[in-house]
């Protein structure tokens, strides 16, 4: 029987967050797309992508070191995840993670998020294509968690970006000692997860705190070794990410609703209260286990639509069972009008 009360609550929450998702461009000061940090904005994990890039309030989310390091406190086995996304315009991305339990209450995990362009043509002032580069952008996470109670866990992760524009060897820059790889300083992410009851869970993640002034993740990049090019500055906005999870059943099928609200502070200050210096976005996702072990997903990240599916199975090796899940996601990037049908992920546990 459908629990009407739960349905109303879930619908209201979805409505609120969807309208939050629509309210992009709140700021008139800067466009979020012009800031560093698109790798983490795009998420990691095809399972989570299929449901609107939601994952911070779900203990099963991987890689937890990225999504919410507090989730590592709930690991019982060694988990792994491997994901590949091929998006339109030669964009190739992916994520991998490995994580496990340490002691009775702690967990540790490592994650790498990757995005790149496989075919960037360097065109010179003569309108000649002088070379093709394959720039890539990556983020590394090392997360730790401590489960304080059966319901609460706290997490900490250290993250760092490594980008390579792959332009140093291009004839276009002949005569200039180009530096095209850049590593950010280590930034800190803090998180909390709480499983309120069998149905509700919540999460709070604060991203991109640094050890510099204003705790800002800001650094200088010098694209030439001989200082012949302008140096530039990178800033990854501080993010407050609040997640909510709801579990129920509809027609006897397990149904899950996930919601996240994100606040990006697009300013190099400790805290900015001016709404002009914030960009708010939202994510929402649903999933339903339509047949045992087969899950259908739908979601929305900002204005982008996603569909996803997953199937769980086990591989037996001797007496040991290895649970594996294969996930697929379809993505439509609404603003750009691009759809990407090729996202595949694999995840599992080694008991």
């Amino acid at each position, binding site marked *: 029987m459908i629990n009407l009360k739960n349905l109303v609550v879930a619908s209201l929450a979805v409505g609120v967050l969807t309208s939050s998702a629509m309210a*992009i461009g709140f700021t008139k000061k800067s466009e979020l797309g012009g800031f560093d940090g698109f790798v983490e904005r795009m998420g990691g994990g095809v399972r989570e992508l299929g449901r609107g890039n939601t994952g911070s309030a779900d203990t099963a989310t991987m890689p937890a070191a990225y999504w919410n390091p507090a989730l590592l406190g709930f690991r019982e086995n060694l988990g792994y995840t491997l994901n590949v996304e091929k998006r339109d315009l030669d964009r190739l991305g992916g994520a991998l993670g490995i994580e496990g339990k340490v002691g009775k209450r702690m967990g540790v995990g490592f994650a790498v998020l990757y995005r790149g362009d496989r075919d960037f043509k360097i*065109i010179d002032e003569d309108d000649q294509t002088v070379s093709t580069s394959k720039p890539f952008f990556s983020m590394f996470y090392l997360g730790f968690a401590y489960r304080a109670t059966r319901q609460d866990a706290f997490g900490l992760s250290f993250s760092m970006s490594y980008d390579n524009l792959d332009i140093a060897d291009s004839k276009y820059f002949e005569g200039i000692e180009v530096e095209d790889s850049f590593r950010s300083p280590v930034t800190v992410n803090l998180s909390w997860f709480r499983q309120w009851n069998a149905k509700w869970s919540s999460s709070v993640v604060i991203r991109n705190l640094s050890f510099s002034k204003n705790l800002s993740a800001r650094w200088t990049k010098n694209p030439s070794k001989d200082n012949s090019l302008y140096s530039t500055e990178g800033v990854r906005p501080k993010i407050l990410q609040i997640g909510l999870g709801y579990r129920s059943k509809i027609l006897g099928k397990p149904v899950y609703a996930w919601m996240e609200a994100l606040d990006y502070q697009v300013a190099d200050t400790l805290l900015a209260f001016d709404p002009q210096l914030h960009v708010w976005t939202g994510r929402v996702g649903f999933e339903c286990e339509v047949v045992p072990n087969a899950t259908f997903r739908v979601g929305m990240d900002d204005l982008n639509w996603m569909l996803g599916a997953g199937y769980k199975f086990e591989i037996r090796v001797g007496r040991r069972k290895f649970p594996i899940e294969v996930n697929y996601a379809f993505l439509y990037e609404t603003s750009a009008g691009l759809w990407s049908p090729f996202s595949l992920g694999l995840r599992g546990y080694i008991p």
Partner: protein
Amino acid sequence: MKKSVTLKSLAFSASLLAGMTLCGNAYAGDVLFGNIVYAVGPAGQNGALWAFSRDGSYSGVTLLNFNVSSKGSVVTDSTGQSPVESDTMTAARYEILEESLAERRRIPAVYAGSKLGLLLPMYAMDKNDRYSKPAGFYSILDLKNVNEHPIDVPSIATDLDTLKNNPIMYGISGFAYDSTAKRLWVARGALGLMVHDISGKNGAKDTTFVLNSKTGLLEKIKDKSSLDLNLYPEIFDVSIHPESGNLWLATSKGVWSWSSSKFEKASDTLKNSRVTGIWMGGSPLQIITETSYKNKDKIEGGLWRRYDKAKEFSKVNFLDTAGKVQKKDVYDEADYTVSDVAFIGKTAYVLVRTVGGSISGYLKLDSLGARAWELDEDGKLQWLYGYETGATDRKAIITSMCSFPLSKNRMGLAIATLGNGVSVSADSGATWSVVLNRAKLNNNLGSIRMVPSVIIAPGDESLVSYKVGRESKITIEVFSYDMRKVRTIVKDAVRNADAVRSTNPKEDYWDGRDDHGKDCTMGVYYIRVKDNHGHIGWGKAMTLGGNFR
């Protein structure tokens, strides 16, 4: 008064618009050796023009031949290219844009008859692989004869630390060819004046002199004392008087001219000035000089002229749009220096550029002086012609300018730009045709090319290059990697069908900034071009970032 100014501006703008409509893209394809053109110069025949390009360590020349259509616009007839012989040599020296001293900021390009052709200075690489060592000059006769002419440096010059550590002090900054005596005069800065004599039967002979400012005589360099710059002033430019045939010198101690048996100071007004350039031409004759010196970190300069029968130089007047002489001129606004001067009839075209190249353009000098062509909305007089007046279709640094015979009865004007090729005018600068390399594009947004596709510095521009088959309303937007829109460049802008490129270079470019004028961070961005007929094309650009503000 204001109304008349406005009407005049309107009329001028209308003529500009008409000019821009006429301003055709004269040629498509691989026309030039490179779009980064440092110098243009006459090639000695009607309609023929040399362009010198350098891109990194690749230097070369292009010979352009033009015709004038029945409508009066310039049509590119044919072109040919040739690299320079050695890639360790070039005519465009290192830091020519950043250099502050006027005589080091220009590339003299002089046509010296059929035996020497176009002359350009030549610089060799130093130990840091920078083109900074004066090495002689190029003598470009035709595409098969781009000749290098090395010049010896006297050993005493290399013994002196001042010159040894700063060889640009004897870089070539001026040529003058005496066709009667068959002598080429070369200004060599601290090393004085060289004569390249081709009158003899046993080949050319080079002799270098310094000017004794006490006696007015040229003396051969003998020992270190010959490099005493108080007694022997630096010679920055040289010119042959078109009427008397006498040699004139622009020096660090005034202007000198040859008078029967010795050099004498040709101007009391400029007798103690650091005169960095001298140009003669036009009808009636104009002699234009530039004074320029470094005052602490600032460049102080002035433009001077001796017009027609005048006996003395006077400062060039800067007039407002109504012809009223202004107290301040462009030299009071910024650190301009002269790059070139071209003459057509009564008008002198003086090309100037600021240190760094952020502003460049040319002044038009009539009999009264330089007249402003517009009073802008901020109440500022606009004297410089260039991008705003349609001489270039993109904001590119103008580096060189010359006049050349387009046909028997018509003189043409040409300008060289860094990145936007060459612009040529058949009507004294009223309308221009742009000649530059362009890649072939597929129709109906089938291919979008960002030119160049890497934005190196904040404010640099990447042109969105596309083609449509019929008149279309074009929308161009920039997206980040995660497909967040960061910029709308144009929305529903009308663009015409074109055989080569439908892009409007004045609007269809991205400068690496978002809709709020903020520099976008280092990374790859995606540029979507849509028309109103359902076509969509994508281009890519990379920016090396800017400053967080």
